[in-house]
């Protein structure tokens, strides 16, 4: 008799526990929505004075931020958006082929026993904090890479991108892109590696049996399989590069122009680094202006991640 009552008690308490737990899980899911909405909302609220406040005061703030080179928000944020995208796109351009190479090396070239160890080594790159990359880039890399950029400017200077004279020391978009490329390498590599390892074995063996060379086999049976995955991996890497602050802040000599001269100093600046550089000395309206540029950066990364997600979804379907 007694055992029966405990069982019923258990099930009722279990049922209410069930409901509470389900509620908690739902709540957590909804909290994600709330959190993102809050991010947008609070950034918008703090950026509001820019729209509603006195336009004269806004202009003064922006003029003081740029030393008179921009007079309204669009003039201010335009070159920043351009610089952000230029630096990250270059970093992606540099990192992508190398990441794919490393991923192939780990998945198809290196001996099996070595490959796990090698992927740990690449992951080490991801473990190093960005402030240390900034220190290293500014103090070690800049003096060492200046000679190389001078060489590039001398022999490839006819390409507008590499127009000389190369800045000395080379605190340029070119150098920063190299550092950012190193920082996003492990992100792209780890995704690419997983995809390559999942490529169907049978097709690869069939290709080899037909007499294909190893590279032909990879081109026929591995790369096509991973195309959408590679694109979304690059988007992830791009997203990381877009938001990188410390490395850009500590290395780049910034400027406010739409130039693509990668080897000259004081050409471009990224939004994130600009916020970090201006925030400490900004007054209330200045903070609002910076938060507005942060909102723009948020929208850009939102778009990039959204596209990445759509691409993977399409591939899955």
């Amino acid at each position: 008799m007694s055992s029966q009552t405990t069982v019923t008690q258990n099930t009722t308490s279990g049922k209410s526990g069930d409901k509470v737990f389900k509620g908690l899980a739902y709540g957590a899911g909804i909290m994600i929505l709330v959190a993102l909405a809050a991010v947008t909302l609070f950034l918008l609220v703090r950026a509001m004075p820019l729209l509603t406040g006195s336009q004269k005061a806004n202009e003064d703030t922006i003029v003081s931020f740029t030393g008179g080179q921009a007079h309204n928000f669009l003039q201010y944020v335009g070159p920043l958006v351009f610089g952000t995208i230029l630096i990250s796109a270059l970093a992606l351009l540099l990192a992508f082929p190398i990441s794919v190479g490393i991923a192939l090396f780990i998945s198809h070239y290196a001996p099996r026993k070595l490959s796990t160890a090698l992927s740990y080594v690449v992951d080490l790159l991801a473990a190093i904090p960005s402030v240390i990359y900034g220190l290293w880039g500014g103090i070690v890399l800049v003096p060492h890479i200046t000679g190389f950029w001078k060489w590039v400017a001398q022999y490839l200077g006819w390409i507008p991108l590499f127009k000389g004279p190369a800045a000395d020391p080379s605190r340029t978009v070119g150098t920063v892109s190299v550092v950012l490329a190193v920082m996003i390498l492990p992100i792209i590599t780890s995704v690419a590696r997983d995809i390559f390892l999942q490529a169907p074995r049978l097709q690869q063996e069939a290709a080899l049996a037909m007499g294909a060379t190893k590279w032909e086999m990879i081109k026929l049976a591995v790369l096509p399989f991973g195309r959408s995955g590679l694109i979304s991996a690059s988007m992830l890497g791009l997203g990381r590069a877009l938001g990188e602050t410390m490395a850009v802040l500590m290395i780049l000599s910034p400027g406010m122009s739409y130039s693509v001269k990668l080897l000259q100093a004081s050409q471009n600046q990224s939004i994130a680094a600009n916020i970090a550089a201006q925030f400490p000395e900004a007054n209330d309206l200045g903070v609002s202006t910076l938060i507005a540029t942060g909102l723009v950066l948020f929208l850009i990364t939102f778009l990039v991640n959204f596209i990445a997600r759509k691409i993977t979804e399409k591939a899955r379907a």
Partner: protein
Amino acid sequence: MSDSHPTIDFDKFKPTRSYIAARKRKDWTMRVFIIAAFVIALIPLVSVLWTTISSGVARLNLNFLSYNMSGVVGGNATPSGGYGGIVHAIIGTLLVTLGSMIISIPLGLMCAVYLVEYSHNGGLARAIGLLVDVMSGIPSIVAGLFAYALFNTLVGPGTVNGFVGSVALSLLMIPTVVKTSEEMLKIVPNDLREAAYALGVTKQRTITKIVLRTALPGIVSGVILAIARVIGETAPLLIAAGFISTTNLNLFSGRMTTLPVYVYQEYSQGLATCSATALQATPPCLPQIRMERAWAAALVLIIIVLLLNLIGRLVAKLFAVKTEN
């Protein structure tokens, strides 16, 4: 009769020698490129690690790990014979990270439970999945600005403390926690759930006692990797948590120095001023002391991050869910 059966000249389809050579060359070129890619990636890694270790090891000693920066004047030695230290930054880093763990682990875990166990892949789940992806792309400085804006609006202007930093970091941590937990919950075999339901166990109990317990090692290692990711963040904490030279144990009041911010601040201050007499004193005044402290703190930071990574991987490996049997 014989001409009605055309003989096929198979030699026509035979690849020419130069074609085979070209294929071989291409294969060889790609092999070289792929190996070169790996070697190129090693150069910065080795260089960063070498620079940090060789510049940081000089100042890294017990004194450096057991004192804070209060009472440290210029490049002069402190009464204890050291040149200031990072105990306040280590404590700050631990507290701020702990704060963000307390926020993001339950939230992220429950969100993953919702996605895997309750959502049945409905519209809300798809929206959440998408937003988690978007969230994982939030630039860290935007997270810092958000936390700053949130507390300035809700608590009062000028609110800068460790907890503001925790909120900023948790925004960066939640998506990683959700994603890894989701993956781990997904690979828990369905047989386990069905067996539990068949025995009349409630859903809540099935999840907490069976599913989560099975997935626990994977989740723990995912969480550790997420911590390793945020513990090195500088930009948001510069805005949200501030900088002081003394030890602060209260997460909710007063500024709090963290290791990455400490590295940045020491670098930013440049040379220390030493008077002529102080240069001759024993222990002497060191003009370069701030760079030395910055590198030593950077070394400590790297060691902490690497240890966390290692622990995360070990946990994952030792207690991995055996899905095959």
